[in-house]
């Protein structure tokens, strides 16, 4: 009891110490950071202006964030996708060395009980699945024009799979991917991205230089369209990778947990 109170007191002292240090630093050095909203700050006057003024011209993407993410800094995004793949493989490797939980066989009645609780909810969720899939494709294709992109679309597709997987039924519509197959698919997704990057090299371009994809483009307008094609191709790779990785992690976890509800 006494020890607990001591611990609490220590935590409170720590919290106040942190707050005091931060406030102290800001009062000591008031010019440490530019003011929020200050349009004259160096952050907003150098690269930012270039991206805003030229991204539509250079890449044909209406969404500047997509232009920066997938085109100007596409190389970062390649490795961001790799991080997803790597996380999936690591989770699989870490957990696959331990024994799986042996689940008792459930009867049909029992299996129907572990779901969202009622038949109405189960059916309702199943109706949502196709809508989510369609929406995911919309988000994927539309990412270049407005908000959206590969990661979101991949997550949506994975959610559709998850709902389908968790709701028990005998004729599961999307099938049952094994976690190792999912990791293989995620690797193929990253490889689509790499291939998109390697293709311009055949047309005397650099790695990931979409404007020189070897599809024959001469005018500025055609080159802009090629950028759009490149962004779409890598987004497809990202979708495949993200979706498969989330499914991979989900399956790894499902193999080793027991729902005792």
């Amino acid at each position, binding site marked *: 009891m006494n020890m607990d109170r001591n611990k609490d007191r220590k935590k409170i002292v720590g919290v106040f110490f942190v707050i005091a240090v931060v406030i102290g630093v800001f009062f000591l050095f008031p010019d440490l950071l530019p003011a929020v909203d200050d349009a004259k700050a160096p952050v907003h006057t150098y690269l930012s202006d270039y*991206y805003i003024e030229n991204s539509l011209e250079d890449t044909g993407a209406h969404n500047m964030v997509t232009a920066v993410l997938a085109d100007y800094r596409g190389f970062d995004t390649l490795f961001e996708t790799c991080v*997803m793949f790597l996380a999936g493989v690591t989770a699989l490797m870490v957990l696959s060395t331990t024994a799986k939980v042996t689940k008792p066989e459930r009867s049909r009645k029992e299996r129907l009980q572990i779901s969202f609780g009622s038949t109405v909810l189960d059916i309702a969720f199943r109706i949502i699945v196709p809508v989510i899939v369609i929406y995911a494709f919309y988000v994927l294709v539309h990412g270049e024009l407005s908000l959206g992109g590969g990661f979101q679309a991949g997550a949506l597709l994975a959610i559709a799979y998850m709902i389908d997987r968790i709701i028990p039924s005998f004729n599961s519509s999307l099938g049952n991917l094994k976690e190792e197959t999912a990791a293989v698919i995620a690797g193929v997704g990253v490889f689509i991205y790499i291939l998109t990057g390697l293709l311009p090299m055949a047309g005397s371009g650099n790695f990931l230089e979409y404007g020189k994809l070897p599809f024959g483009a001469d005018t500025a307008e055609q080159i802009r369209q090629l950028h759009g094609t490149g962004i779409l191709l890598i987004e497809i790779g990202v979708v495949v990778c993200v979706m498969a990785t989330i499914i991979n992690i989900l399956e790894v976890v499902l193999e080793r947990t027991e729902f005792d509800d």
Partner: protein
Amino acid sequence: MIDIIETFLAEKGIYMMTFILMGLGIFGMVSSGNYMKKIMCMNIMQVSIIFFFLALGQKEHGTLPVVVENLLGADAYINPLPHALMLTAIVVSLGTTGVALALLMKIKEIYGSIEEEDITGKRWKK
């Protein structure tokens, strides 16, 4: 006096909040004995850095960096670069959290507990 504090908070308040959040995250990671709480504090710390970058990207009278019909000029949009960077950082932190949770499941399977004092046999410092 109140005016000064008001402008100070308006200009710097958000940075102060993010740094306090970060400090609390690190403090929580150091001080809490439960591994799940440590992961949560880690996420708080990562989110605070994401906030910091997004606060840097804000601009007066700026709107979303999406060209709707015509390009309105450089002053009309907020800075797209921090947003793109932070999308990467979010995915990275997602991956880190995923691996952390997988490790935590494994630790739970081996030791039967996720409390630091159960695993190392040491009590929290008095």
